[in-house]
Structure formats: structure tokens, C-alpha cells
């Protein structure tokens, strides 16, 4: 069963100065599914992920060419305000990066700056719901005003997810969200991803083949800036069409 397309790239090229990091990638991301990007380090999957909410804008040497469509909006349109885009495409980073403020403030910041809440009780509702959806509420409900930096790594990462979903984005980008976490925290976050999928389109970059197999419905394999193979996760892992993909999945390269 295929869902409608949420995001699609058309002949996307990314350069760092003269070095090309992404070569002519065209692909479509299905909505309300989890798509995982796999591939060896330096293959460009993180760079590619960061194109979807224009995080590459802040890197001066980085140049993006081509189209990324979300609905009828071209994300690469220089007239598009990246702030508006990032309210629709949220991001969770590799290392948990909570603000050095209270747990409550971390989650409330996004809705507040976007003007999505108009009263204290509304803010509290949003914070509570976001923390519940990220599975953190039961652990922190009695210390919402403690510093977020006092949480464990896995809790911090779930807080970052709560912060990202507080503004109800349509797409959630996750850049190796579990690479700094222990297996228990990883399991919690993977379950969370499965639940979030109902409402969001999720793209996740991962180094763990098992994780890709567990959480995603679609998988894309990248190598040296090229998209080698893209399809249903089951298909890719059981019957890869490309020998490179097969070698990577079976642990022969990468």
C-alpha cells in the first residue's frame, strides 16, 4: 500500500565548495511512513536529510541545487522563509541538545515563538501533551521546572523529540537519534517513532541496519553521494536489487 507523496526531490545536487556531496538524487518520500536512510559514513545521507529543512543554509560553503517539493511549495525557493519551513519540518539531532533551561521551557519555546499558544494554560496543555506523546511525561511530570540538562541521555533525546513535535510539524527529520543512547533508551525511542508515524512523516538516518529494519517501511541506500537503491524496507533487506546494497547490508562493506 502506498501513501501519497509528502516530499520529493528532483535532481538534487549539493556541493561543499567544489566538492560534490550529493549527486542528482530524485526520490519521493511517502507521507505518514518512516523512511530510513542508510549507508556508510560520509555517503551524504545526513547532508541530504538536512536539505529538507534547509539546515544547510547555515553552512557558508554549502550550495544546494535542484528542487525539493513539499506539496506545491519548493523548499529550495530562496523566497521561502526557512523559519516557516522549519515550523513544518522539525528536526532531532544526533546528540541530544536540550537548551540549558527547564524541561518546561524547552518544550514551550517553539509554540511560543511561533505564536501558536495564547495563554499559560494552553502552553501547559501543549507541553503536557508533547511530553506524553514522547513518553517522557511519567518520568518528569513532578519536576517540569528542573533543568533539562539533569536528565539522562535517553530522556534528553525524548525531550528533544517532544520539543520538535510541540509545534506539530508535518515532517520529522531524525539524524541518528539513537547513536548516543543505550539499547533500552533506543527501544523506547523506536517505539515512539512507531507511534509518531501515525501523525507525521518521519525520515530517519541510521547506522544500525536492525533499526532501519525495525522502524521503517521504506529504506534508501546511499553510497558516495549517490542514491543506490530505494524501496520497501522488506524488499531491500530480503532481496536487494543492487549488489552494493547487498554487500553493505550483509556487512561486507561500510
Amino acid at each position, binding site marked *: 500500500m502506498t501513501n501519497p507523496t509528502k516530499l520529493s526531490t528532483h535532481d538534487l545536487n549539493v556541493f561543499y565548495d567544489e566538492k560534490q556531496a550529493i549527486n542528482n538524487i530524485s526520490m519521493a518520500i511517502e507521507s505518514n511512513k518512516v523512511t530510513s536512510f542508510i549507508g556508510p559514513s560520509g555517503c551524504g545521507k545526513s547532508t541530504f536529510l538536512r536539505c529538507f529543512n534547509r539546515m544547510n543554509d547555515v553552512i557558508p560553503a554549502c550550495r544546494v541545487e535542484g528542487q525539493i517539493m513539499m506539496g506545491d511549495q519548493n523548499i529550495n525557493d530562496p523566497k521561502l522563509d526557512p*523559519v516557516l519551513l522549519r515550523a513544518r519540518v522539525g528536526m532531532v539531532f544526533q546528540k541530544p541538545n536540550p537548551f540549558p533551561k527547564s524541561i518546561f521551557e524547552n518544550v514551550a519555546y517553539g509554540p511560543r*515563538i*511561533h505564536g501558536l499558544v495564547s495563554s499559560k494554560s494552553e502552553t501547559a*496543555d501543549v507541553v503536557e501533551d508533547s511530553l506524553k506523546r514522547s513518553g517522557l511525561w511519567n518520568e518528569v511530570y513532578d519536576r517540569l521546572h528542573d533543568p533539562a540538562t539533569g536528565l539522562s541521555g535517553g530522556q534528553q533525546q525524548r525531550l528533544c523529540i517532544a520539543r520538535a513535535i510541540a*509545534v506539530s510539524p508535518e515532517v520529522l527529520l531524525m539524524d541518528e537519534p539513537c547513536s548516543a543512547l543505550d539499547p533500552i533508551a533506543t527501544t523506547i525511542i523506536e517505539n515512539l517513532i512507531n507511534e509518531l508515524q501515525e501523525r507525521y512523516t518521519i525520515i530517519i538516518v541510521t547506522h544500525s541496519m536492525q533499526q532501519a529494519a525495525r522502524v521503517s517501511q521504506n529504506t534508501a541506500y546511499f553510497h558516495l553521494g549517490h542514491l543506490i537503491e530505494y524501496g520497501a524496507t522488506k524488499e531491500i533487506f530480503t532481496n536487494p536489487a543492487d549488489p552494493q546494497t547487498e554487500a553493505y547490508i550483509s556487512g561486507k562493506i561500510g
Partner: protein
Amino acid sequence: MSNPIKDMSTDERLHLISVSLNKRHRKEKQLKLAGLAAITLAIGFLVVLMTNIFSNGYTALLQSEVRIDINVPKAEILGADGAIDIQKSQAFNWNGLVKKSFRAGFPDVKGMSDRRMLNDLVSENAGYELRQAIEKDPSLIDQSSFWVKTSDDVDMLLKGRIKTTLPEKLRRIKDSQLVWINQLEQKNDLRKVFNTAFFTNADSREPESAGILGAIVGSAMVLMITIIIALPLAVMAAIYLEYFAPPGRLTDFIEVNINNLASVPSIVFGLLGLAIFLGFFNMPRSAPLVGGMVLALMTLPTIIIATRASIRAVPTSIRDAALGVGASRMQAALDHVLPLAAPGILTGTIIGIAQALGETAPLIMIGMVAFIVDVPTSVTDPATALPVQIFIWSDSAERAFYERSSLAIMVLLIFLISMNLLAVFLRKRFEKRW
């Protein structure tokens, strides 16, 4: 429980965001404008200041000279062997010779006061400088005409700094002198040349002979002493505080006091130098040695703070890596952390030193404000420093000193700017990325 954001439709949500976005754009624009205005204002003042200093000072680069026909009486200067006899030369009235030769060009001028006014057109130091020139190059003795410096008043007049429209009483150049200057000009006996004396002499009573070399050498000696004392002390203090000091009340107390020391007015350090170094240890007055010690005390906290900040900026992972292979704490600090912190330490040091270079008050307290005509040759010789020299000149009555103080400010600024450029260069050169 309801989540108001989750319950909104996408369109509603986007509408709210774009409304808030407009507000944010407006604020961003205001902030940008305010920042731009602040920078424009700062640059505007800087331009006004620089223009003022430059327009007052650039004329000091030139010095007026007058040509006088002088026949040096060889018999009174040369010894029996035909070479210059220093003793005879010393006894000879050179200044009288210059003045007499100058007056010979104006045979009509009679009477004591007129003759004195005529004498006043030539520098008081002209005779001394002529003697110096001839003793240095005896072949000049056969020359029949010499260019000698005019007095500072004539110099100011020729540079347009004395208004001839003023009533005679308010002018330093009188009407009769104006006539003579006019005659000299018509005979092409006046010229302006590059003011080398400014860069090769120390201070002088006569502005036309006053130079800045003494102050530059004095400043250089002071800074040398400052660096020799402050840099090793400060770096070691910082390393100790960062790595070895046991955490506790005493360490906290020291830390607080170092921070306080950085904000103590510089004149207090001058008083300290006066009381301790001069009063108690009886060190020489006006000496760069004492000046350097006082400024070292002043710079010490600045460098300690900069060094600690740059040591802290080195990620702990580097230190952990060194400790992990079994390095001692000192080896980790010296082999790995310090080299990475070096650019920051250097920058902090240079900024501290640049601050010391511009410092006047403490030097005045220890007597470096004296009138000193010799270029110092050792750190215990009496000397002045650049900012103090500027202070002395700006306080003088002669217009020509005013002009020279502006030029001296330009020299000081050039030194400061080059030190800051050096700091930038060193930072770029030694910066390592991790």
C-alpha cells in the same frame, strides 16, 4: 486533555505562524537598524577623531628651514693637524656665528630690539645643530651656505597656523618680522623639508628639535620589562589555578581578587609603584625598569584571565586523551592543552600589552613624566614613554608642540594598530581546529 496545537487544522496553524512571523520580521528589522545605527555612530566618531588628529598632526612631518650664508672661521675650530679640535669647537660660539651670519643678510636692521626680533626667526638650536653637522662631516666646513631650522613661530606661520589677520599684539610674529620673512621667501631662502629630527631626537625645549625617539625607546623598554615579568608569571598562575589549585575558600578568594584586580584604576598601580618600588626599595626614579614593573602588575590579571579562558576553551576530551595514555597532569597540560591554548594566550597578552602601551597615569606617578633630552640606553636611565610624551607636549604653550603631540598620537596609534594586527595574525597562524 486537549492539545490546542494538535487540534488545529494545518491551515490554521500556518496562518498563526505566518502572523507571528510578520511580527518577528518587524522586530528583526528594528534590531538590525539599531545595530547598524550604533556601528555608524561609532565609525562616525572614529572618523571625526582621526580627521582631527590627522589634520592637526600631518604638518609636523615637515620642518621649515632658512638658507644662511655662513663662513665658518677655520682657524678657530681646526687644530694644528687640520682636523677639527673638539675642545676648540666646544669653546666656539656657534650660535653667535649663525645669528651674525643671518643678520648679515639684513644690513638695514639696526637697534637692539629689531636685531633680537630678527634673531628670533632662526632656531635657538641652529648653532648647536650646525656644530654637530660639521663635527660629523668636516668637509662641510668649506661650504659657504647652510640650511638651518627656522624658529617654531616662523614654521607655524609658513604652515598657515598663525593668522596674519589678527592684530599685531595677539600674534607671535610681529609686522616687521613678516616683512623679513617675505624678503626671505622672495629670495627663495625658505624651504620645507621632512622633519627627520622628530624621529631621531628625544624631547627638547625647542619644538623644532623635539623628537619622539626617546619616548619610543622608553616605551619599548617599559613593554619589554612588562612582558618579561607579566607573561611567565601570569601563564603559570593560570595553569596552577586551572589544574593544581585545590578547590576551596582560599582558591575562591584568590580568584575573586584576580578579577577585582583587573578593574582597579591604573593610577592606583602607579601609587603602589611609588610607595613600594621607589619609596621602599629605593629604585631609580623615572626609570623604564620601574615603569615596566608597575605596568606588569597592571597587566597580570588581564593575562591570567585570558589564559584561563583559553585553557578552558580546549575541550576536556583532549585532556582526557592525554591522561588516558598515562600522561601526568602536568604533561597533559604542557604537551596538549597549552599548545592549543597558545593562540588565545598570545592574543590576551598582546591586548594586555597594548593597553599598557597606552597607559599614562601610573607612569606619571613614578616620575616618567620628566623632561628628558637623551634617548635612554638602559632600563635604569630616566626616560619617558609615548603617551606621557603626548601628555607633556599637549600641555605646552607653543603651537608647534601641539602639532607634534598630534603626530605623536598618530605614531602611538600606528604602534597600537600593528600590535592588534599581530594579535590577529598570530591567532590565525597558530589556531588549530578540532
